[in-house]
């Protein structure tokens, strides 16, 4: 391990980007086994502080590292080959507990791998373990996990964001070079912003959902959580692609997302929606984001005012659609075939009711109830149908804006990381954490968050939103911005 540390050009291994790790592996500065042991030991030493992992899997990780070393030795070239990664505990991993942050699945060992997991393993990535998350991805603070809250490495009294808070904290604390996340209403971008890392939610349909435990099927999308846009592009290359097992995965060929990153952004028009700078946005936050926009302008992009008039309705529409889909998606957790079953059920109804009441946490139960109510007879039109109509209006807003611009930019969330418990008593306040991210899911667009400043030593996220299936352009903007700034290199740890 010391050897590995010494060989990394005087920079600690855990501060290296995926590209640098790739170079180190290919030039035999260190082996995948050494890297893997190094990061496992960092997790062992430091994760007690953050609680970012639910499950760490040293044995299979080391076996995978050895296999990767053999592949490297045989001359195989692959961006992720031998690089340690973490999977959000929402992705099924064969034989490795996949809990989704819930007591309901505390004992669940999937008999299969999610497509994303299989693809990354095929590419040679080494999975170190499964990261903590809000229960069934329902939360914006990582306070709803059955496995306890995750702490923000920048200030352990504050939340890391959610639901992919474990992945965000692990990447920020340099416990792992990169991790997967999933984003239904902001669950990659908001924790990325709060933890000062780069997170990308691809276009709906870009990444297979097979084996990714469903929260809201029409909104869920997996994506990379990394330390830079370039790393995100590398990882997206391995995650994306059509999957015949997911009929909502787009039958499109994927570009190499690394191509074009180096191209400047002078040809781009960047839309700035005035609705994203309303009075809900923290004023210091607004200042930091405006500064980032100015930086983009300096890089040659043209800033254009755009309007997203219905964006205020995205949170209301989302909090009908997502719970409605969730209420149905989570019906399979019934204690019959896998997962938790209550002790000594008296009869069938008792089994269902007690299993679900004991197995789900409060926020999950609340959303199931909201969703079931919104779908019930007499309320369907007023809630569900209405929300689907609003959803179209929101998508139409984006379509119109994208007639004028190539990318839309604004804040990722209204304020930096807040303290534990601050929003727990008021679900609506918590939901408003996602006011700038949710519309992107409703419209199915790609969106990312990149570090763009600090307020009181807490990170600020700049959100970049692209056209459908145009991840390449937002990655290019992010990469060019990161070439000109160093916010993404700031680390909460030595």
């Amino acid at each position: 391990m010391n050897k590995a540390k010494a060989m990394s050009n005087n920079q600690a291994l855990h501060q290296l980007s995926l590209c640098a790790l790739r170079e180190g592996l290919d030039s035999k500065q260190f082996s995948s086994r050494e890297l893997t042991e190094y990061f496992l030991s960092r997790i062992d030493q430091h994760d007690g502080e953050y609680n970012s992992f639910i499950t760490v899997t040293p044995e299979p990780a080391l076996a995978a590292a050895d296999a990767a070393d053999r592949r490297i030795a045989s001359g195989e070239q692959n961006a992720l080959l031998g690089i340690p990664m973490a999977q959000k505990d929402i992705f099924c991993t064969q034989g490795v507990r996949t809990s989704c942050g819930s007591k309901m699945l505390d004992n669940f060992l999937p008999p299969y791998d999610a497509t994303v997991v299989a693809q990354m393993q095929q590419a040679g990535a080494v999975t170190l373990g499964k990261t903590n998350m809000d229960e069934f991805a329902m939360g914006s603070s990582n306070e709803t996990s059955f496995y306890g809250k995750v702490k923000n490495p920048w200030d352990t009294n504050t939340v890391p964001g959610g639901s992919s808070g474990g992945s965000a904290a692990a990447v920020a604390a340099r416990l792992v070079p990169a991790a997967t996340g999933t984003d239904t209403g902001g669950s990659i971008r908001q924790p990325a912003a709060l933890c000062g890392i780069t997170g990308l939610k691809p276009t709906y349909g870009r990444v297979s959902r097979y084996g990714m435990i469903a929260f809201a099927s029409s909104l869920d999308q997996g994506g990379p959580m990394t330390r830079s846009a370039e790393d995100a592009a590398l990882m997206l290359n391995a995650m994306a692609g059509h999957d015949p097992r997911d009929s909502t995965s787009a039958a499109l060929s994927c570009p190499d997302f690394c191509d074009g990153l180096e191209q400047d952004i002078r040809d781009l028009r960047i839309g700035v929606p005035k609705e994203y700078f309303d009075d809900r946005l923290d004023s210091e936050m607004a200042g930091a984001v405006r500064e980032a926009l100015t930086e983009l302008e300096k890089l040659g992009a043209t800033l254009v005012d755009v309007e997203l008039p219905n964006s205020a309705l995205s949170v209301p529409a989302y909090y009908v659609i997502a719970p409605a889909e969730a209420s149905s998606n989570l019906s399979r957790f019934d204690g019959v075939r896998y997962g938790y079953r209550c002790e000594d059920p008296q009869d069938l109804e008792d089994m269902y009711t007690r299993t679900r009441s004991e197995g789900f946490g409060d926020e999950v139960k609340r959303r199931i109830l909201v969703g079931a109510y919104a779908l019930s007879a007499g309320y369907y039109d007023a809630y569900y149908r209405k929300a689907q109509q609003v959803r179209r209006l929101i998508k139409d807003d984006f379509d119109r804006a994208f007639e004028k611009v190539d990318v839309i930019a604004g804040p990722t969330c209204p304020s930096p990381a807040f303290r534990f418990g601050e929003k727990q008593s008021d679900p609506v306040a918590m939901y408003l954490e996602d006011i700038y991210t949710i519309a992107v899911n409703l419209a199915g667009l790609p969106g990312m968050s990149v570090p763009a400043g600090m307020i009181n030593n807490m990170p600020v996220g700049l959100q970049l939103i692209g056209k459908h299936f145009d991840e390449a352009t937002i990655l290019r903007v992010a990469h060019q911005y990161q070439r000109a700034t160093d916010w993404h290199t700031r680390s909460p740890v030595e």
Partner: protein
Amino acid sequence: MQWETVIGLEVHVQLATKSKIFSGSSTAFGAPPNTQANAVDLALPGTLPVANEQAFHSAILFGLAVNAEIERRSVFERKNYFYPDLPKGYQTTQLAAPIVGEGSIEINTGTDNQTSRHIRIHHAHLEEDAGKSLHEDFHGMSGIDLNRAGTPLIEIVSEPDMRNAEEAVAYLKKIHAIVTYLGISDGDMSQGSLRCDANVSVRPMGSDTLGTRTETKNLNSFRFIEKAINVEVARQIDLIEDGGEVVQETRLYDSDKNETRSMRSKEEANDYRYFPCPDLLPVVIEQKTIESLRQKMPELPDQKRARFETQYELSGYDASLLCESRELADYFEQVAENCGDAKLAANWVMGELSAYLNKENLFISQSQVSAAALGQLISRIDDQTISGKIAKKVFESMCESGDEPDKIIAQQGLKQVSDSGAIEAMVQEVIDNSEAQVLQYLAAEPDKRKKLLGYFVGQVMKVSKGQANPGEVNRILAEKLK
């Protein structure tokens, strides 16, 4: 008071696809429990459905067969409820945008099957079947087998156009014939490939408002559906005439007791919270797909029946009986082609052959007697090798041994004797032994003679063991007794 019965049927037809509607598991019947239930069928977390194209093609074929509109854009929805045989906690089905829209079929009832009625089909939609709960005692628990879960079904919903149990049965038989003709289902009711729920209500004769209906489930044979409807109608009329009211509810037919009873477990007000399935995008059917399926449409029962009436000059009744199943109709056509005598072929298929199959409880595909063999047998009647009476004897042997008729005729020496010399000898023998009858015959008035001649014919046939050509016998007798 005179009551009118109003019946609508919901018919579930299992489609004969190789794989399930949303997964690659086999749909074959009879595998060990849960060996045809993969991760998708068990609704493991993270699994997703991918719809089977053949299920759509089957549904479209059905739609074309009942002259229905094929919906170019159909949508799967989720019907949410908890039941152990429903792994996802919802059934994926179609509601607002089913694949098959309004259509209709003609049914024939009455003693001669000549009373025709037009029954409207409201729509038909695709959905997935549930698994099975086994109620044998597993230490006081039930066992769940999900092999059937995800088998594709079309649910065919009729308008309330039927007025008695006989019409309901005729409708169901017609649906059965259509789906088996199309080859989209095996139609095997004993295995649950075709199941039926009956919505039944009664109203005073002449009224045009519908009474409160009940839905009777578990009707898995033509006989049960008839009995169940009749007992349910009787129950409702008794109830109303005693001053009671019919409650809208789900009832279960108990074939042992021949009664329907309320399914209290389903009484609890259910709210299925239907909504479009977010895992499945809308299915868009191209016009060219519909056209190419239309090209592949086989001849349907009504078309075949009409053709049999003209081509083979069969009565409407005979033709409709033969067309009840595609196998029977095909069998008949082969027999008719083999022997060239369609009328006789029809009589034999509906008579001796059907009686044999019924007695042995066989499908036509399991018959010992092939269509070629039966055709040969009928040819032997036509070419006077054997008489009709001997043919029945030969047929019995064919059923037992499966041998060809020519072989049986030869082995058992059943060939008809037409040789006039041999017959003349037999006639002479009979005349010689019947002195009294001969005298009686000769003394009788010419118009009485015909009757008396029968005695001699019978005696000659007896002597010939039935093999003498009856025409020859008559001719020679008449000559000798002049």
